[in-house]
């Protein structure tokens, strides 16, 4: 009798562990199943690639946000950096005809904005929220100043960066996977990743244990900036124009993806895989609501509800053990 009970208990705890560990993945799975049932077009390979292509730009930004949020920070300048780096990337391409050079310039601009934000956060102990909001204004102003508010047209082969494919794989999706792998390696296989978790968990303890907190923070901003720079170049390619108005509020979509994916604003918690899942949940939500031709007012309400539900499920499955369960 007793051993039976024990076996049953282990079974339950195994299920509980699975739910606990993979809560958000289960949410994604359920969403995919529901989507496939209500829309016959959903599982079309074209549609799946379509979703991946649509989410790639914000997902790339989301990985940068994930690193920063794990470290207890945030970057509100990403959307503006996307526009600045993308437009300058387009300009450089128009001047030189080199796609590689354009990407490098995008990365450089992103890195420089990251260095500046990181500098003020570490040197003057300013809240990242304020510093990056200021950077959001500066970068947006700079791109308007550069373009005079007018889009850059006829960008030629630059559009391949956003619309082209390597084999069956759209180029933005390729970059998204590349950035995802980079983020995973940083968080799981590099000392930098452990430092990010440590600082996000307890900054003072990290400093006491000899971590050079300032450098780590600056590096995190640089990585976030670089990701935004890459995203900017891809976005302009996708839109087939250098649009100074592009990317407004992209940082919020990115932060939402990270948070849905289990990254916590308390710091020290979050994974690269979770962010990817969070981004797919958002992307599938958008896609299925459009496929179903749901009215846009209703879409906004549904999106809000589903985002809260997804995070609530994730958090409740994670904290079940620590709280007494009342039956």
């Amino acid at each position, binding site marked *: 009798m007793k051993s039976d009970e024990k076996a049953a208990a282990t079974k339950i705890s195994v299920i509980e562990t699975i739910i606990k560990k993979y809560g958000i993945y289960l949410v994604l799975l359920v969403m995919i199943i529901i989507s496939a049932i209500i829309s016959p077009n959903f599982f079309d390979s074209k549609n799946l690639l379509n979703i991946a292509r649509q989410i790639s730009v914000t997902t790339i930004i989301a990985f940068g946000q994930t690193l920063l949020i794990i470290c207890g920070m945030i970057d509100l300048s990403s959307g503006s950096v996307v526009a600045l780096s993308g437009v300058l990337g387009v300009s450089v391409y128009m001047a030189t005809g080199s796609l590689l050079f354009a990407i490098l310039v995008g990365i450089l601009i992103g890195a420089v904005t990251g260095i500046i934000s990181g500098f003020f956060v570490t040197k003057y102990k300013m809240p990242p929220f304020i510093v990056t909001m200021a950077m959001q204004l500066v970068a947006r102003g700079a791109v308007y100043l*550069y373009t005079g508010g007018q889009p850059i047209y006829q960008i030629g082969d630059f559009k391949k960066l956003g619309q082209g494919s390597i084999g069956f794989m759209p180029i933005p999706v390729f970059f998204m996977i590349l950035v995802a792998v980079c983020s995973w390696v940083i968080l799981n296989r590099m000392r930098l990743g452990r430092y990010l978790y440590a600082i996000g968990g307890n900054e003072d303890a990290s400093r006491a244990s000899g971590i050079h907190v300032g450098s780590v923070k600056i590096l995190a901003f640089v990585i976030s900036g670089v990701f935004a720079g890459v995203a900017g170049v891809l976005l302009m390619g996708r*839109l087939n124009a250098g649009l100074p108005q592009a990317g407004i509020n992209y940082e919020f979509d990115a932060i939402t993806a990270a948070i849905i994916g289990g990254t916590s604003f308390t710091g020290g918690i979050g994974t690269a895989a979770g962010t990817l899942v969070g981004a797919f949940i958002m992307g599938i939500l958008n896609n299925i609501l459009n496929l179903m031709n749901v009215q846009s007012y209703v879409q906004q309400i549904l999106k809000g509800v589903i985002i809260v539900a997804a995070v609530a499920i994730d958090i409740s499955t994670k904290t079940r053990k620590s709280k007494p369960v009342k039956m």
Partner: protein
Amino acid sequence: MKKALIKRLLAGILAVVMVMGMVGCASSGESSETSNLSAGKTSEGSTSSGKTYNVVFIAKALSDPFSTWLSTSIEKIAKEKYPNIKVSTIDGQNAVDKQIAAMETAVSQKPDCIILQMVDSVAMVDPVNAAREAGIQTVMVNGAIDDNGANSTVDSNPEEQGKLMAAKAAELLPKNANIVIMDGPAGNWHSNGRRAGVKAALLDVRSDVKVLAEKEANWNKDEGMALMEDWLQTFPKIDAVISMNDNMSLGALEAVKASGKTEGFTAYGVDGLADACLSIDAGELTASVVQDGYAQAEAALKIANDIVTGANTQVQLIDVPAVLITKDNVSEWLQKHKDNGFIK
């Protein structure tokens, strides 16, 4: 160690400053006139009469290409035709509160006249009245406020624009065509007006045309593109996109091109800005309707000149007619955009 880090950072900052410097030089032609109000008080450009008038232009949003067209045109025309008028520009930043603050700032500087491209037709009534009480008349451009015709206004009728675009679609669409419609932000005055025109000139006269789907893409190219990508997955055959502005239509076209379903596809929009004209010229966008920013600027300045010189203080309502742009007449508009420096 720390010093080395700071040195590296300083180098980085220097690089950014240099980039910004380059940026400044490259765009000086377009934005140098957008200075603050005090700069508008200089006395250069006086005519024989010796009197210089200060006119403040409050733009809807200098991040918006049409608004930029309006503002550069106003500055250019003032320089060429009204040397006695000195224009300074304030950006309304597409926000009601910012534009109200801009009106207050403008009034406090006591200009001779204000030209306003309103962000909101209701919220801007009080600030315009406040300016009048301070003895400053406001000329509305590109959109009227709900003032029962109390202020001089230059505008293009959005319903007329919608009708022009839709009539072209009604002419070109095949029998039993399947179309999708993209709207501007919910409740937007221009979007609603254009949509009413689409109903009158297309949906009411071509009952065979079926609207598969309709949604707001908020004037944005990226949103229009993503929306069209999803619709292309849902609907096997879409013959046309009718969009309340060009941006969304151009985004939809990018999606259609990527899907390879361009055969027989037509796309319609409104605004007639440089990107739309280039697209029409390339045989992609089918038709656009231009609201002529230059003509609107010209009319607004004429009224402003009448007011400041006292030549005509009556309320003037000027309707700048909308013009359909297709492949047939696009070269003329390309030339205009080239003249304005929007196409290099």
